[in-house]
């Protein structure tokens, strides 16, 4: 079966163990998750997750339905192919000295990225963009010597109107405040 890259977004309750439950459904099938990004959503106590996975479309759809069944899940949508904006954030620590620092700054400017830290022997570049842009920037500065890189993985949102996930008017109030399984 042909595998393709899929972007899934999920709205879930912010509780311990939820990420484990979600990730476990991919692991069970031997999927490698390209990236996961998790953060607060527009509602208190609700998190939004963005998964990027590689897999056959029918299998990903099957996983999506099972993710939907996790008790803390509000909804999971596969937004691959929708009109979406995707971005990720990267920190790239590059070797730099007084001789080449200005050259690095020029490249950073072209990519509309920022230098967020300067040390005698290095700089940290903060870049935002889609995967291709981050990869291009990375390739250009690689020649100076990369000391460290950290990328957030993709977040995604559909353009215009209403998104694939429901907008919650009220945060859910669960009676059971007990901690669910640990992450």
């Amino acid at each position: 079966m042909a595998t393709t890259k899929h972007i899934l977004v999920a709205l879930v309750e912010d509780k311990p163990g939820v990420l484990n439950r979600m990730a476990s459904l991919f692991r069970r099938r031997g999927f490698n998750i390209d990236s996961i990004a998790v953060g607060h959503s527009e509602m208190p106590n609700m998190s939004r997750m963005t998964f990027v996975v590689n897999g056959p479309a029918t299998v990903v759809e099957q996983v999506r339905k099972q993710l939907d069944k996790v008790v803390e899940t509000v909804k999971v949508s596969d937004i691959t192919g929708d009109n979406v904006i995707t971005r990720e954030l990267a920190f790239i620590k590059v070797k730099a000295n007084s001789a080449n620092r200005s050259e690095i700054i020029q490249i950073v400017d072209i990519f509309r990225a920022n230098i967020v830290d300067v040390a005698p022997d290095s700089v940290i570049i903060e870049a935002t963009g889609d995967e291709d842009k981050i990869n291009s920037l990375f390739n250009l500065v690689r020649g100076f010597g990369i000391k460290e890189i950290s990328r957030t993985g993709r977040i995604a949102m559909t353009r215009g109107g209403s998104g694939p996930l429901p907008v919650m008017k009220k945060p859910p109030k669960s009676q059971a405040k007990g901690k669910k399984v640990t992450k």
Partner: protein
Amino acid sequence: MKMTGAQIICESLVKEGVEVIFGILGGSLLPLYDALPHYPQLRHILVRHEQGAAHAADGYARATGKVGVCFATSGPGATNLVTGIANAHLDSAPMVAITGQVARPFIGKDAFQEVDITGITLPITKHNYLAMDAASLPGIMKEAFYLAGTGRPGPVLIDLPRDVQQEPAEFNYPDKINLPQYKPTLQGHPAQIKKAAKLIGESQRPLIIAGRGITISGAYAELKELVEKAQIPVVTTLLGTSCFPESHALSYGMLGMHGMAYANMAVDAADLIIAIGMRFDDRATAKVSAFAPHAHIIHIDIDPAEIGKNVRVDVPIVGDVKLVLGELNKLADKSKHIDWVRKLDEWRKEHPSLIIRDGESLLPQYVVRQIYEATKGEAIVVTGVGQHQMWAAQYYWYDKPNTFISSGGLGTMGFGLPAAMGAKVGCPDKTVWCIDGDGSLQMTIQELATIAQEKVGVKIAVLRNNYLGMVRQWQELFYGKRYVATPLSSPDFVKISEAYGIPALRVERRAEVAPAIQKAMAEPGAFLIDFIVEPEENVYPMVPPGAALAEVLEEPRKEAKAVKDSAKLPVSNI
């Protein structure tokens, strides 16, 4: 009102109407067990191994439709539950398992008898909880029972640290569930039901495949109404056995790997499959790419994740099968499929799939048949896993709803004895027969002690062939008769049983079968019969692994004579 965590658990169990708990205590559950005697309405049954507790709770749940409850202590107690929990998960049996955990300050430190049971059971529970304070317990208990018993039922585990059991907290049992994200779809989509009715009306060769969903939802009457109104033949999955009366003219028995040849041929020839409360398990579909090649498929199931999982579906209907069938029955036209039904009856005559050969040798099929005769089909039959399980499904006629309990999805050897015990505890007025194999029985044989101590009147038929028979059959057919690691020298089960305090008999000849069964039934309590059956008997029909349903192997012996089939041929009322 202030109570300890342990009291809160007990109070909650009482509020949920729990009558019986199967379990074994241990250090981390001592506070909970210390509270138990103050709640005499909660009967505790001390099993001999935690796997038995989980299977007993499972058997109880399937026989009664209520949520089964089991307790186990932390560490090894909890891990011993795992097989039973996985079994309940795959067969959608409602269960709440409560495990002890080390005290909160010790969690995560590899303390004595600590294991991450919520982590371990994450993929085999419908949901699980690590209760980190006593105040959360009423809510957790309420949710756990609700989750276990509603929608597609399943096991829920609550991990309970020892100090949480001792912690005082306010007890107010919530009367409402607050699970905003959990809303099983019960009503089928009207447009989909309309489409299904239309397809049924247009089909020439419709076939219903009924699964355990009928039993869970209690949709016996609705299924029967649809079958009779539209005159649609019915086959069942293994776990669907007993969801539709097998003596009905339109019943064609079980499909699948050891299903009736004519049932499998019907699937192959049908132009419409109406799959109800079943999940297209590979043992039912055989080679999935060749499954029902001429048919449109309507799939009715409460779990949306089952739709399209294994086979392409033309009309999916997500909902409770009882409600969906109720609606579908309003729309379905009265119809007749005279040629189709006649064809199936011809196949049933030409391909008799249930055969008991004449002669002296004690055939396992004969034993099952005699149990049927003696109980008049009124008993609940609980099986282990293996050849005996298939014979029990095939050679007993299930006319009464929910009278067949077996481990389908996980195929857990050892399920039979503890599950039968649970079923009998749940239905004390019914006759419960455990039909087991010598291999399967020995995986949980220690529960004979529980049965004796608790005076559970289970009748046990051991079909002993001194082999792991099902695997031996595969070795015979597909591995050149190389019987590696399948011969068993099983012990004297009569002595074993008597040592546990359960009367028993050995039977080696056909003539002794019926009297022995009568003796077992006349006994007020438990009774075991050790049937020494034909050792190398095979289960037929059989669809070889990897083959399509239509490529079914039938009983090869020439002297074979059909017994059940001919007797079962319907008086034509079509």
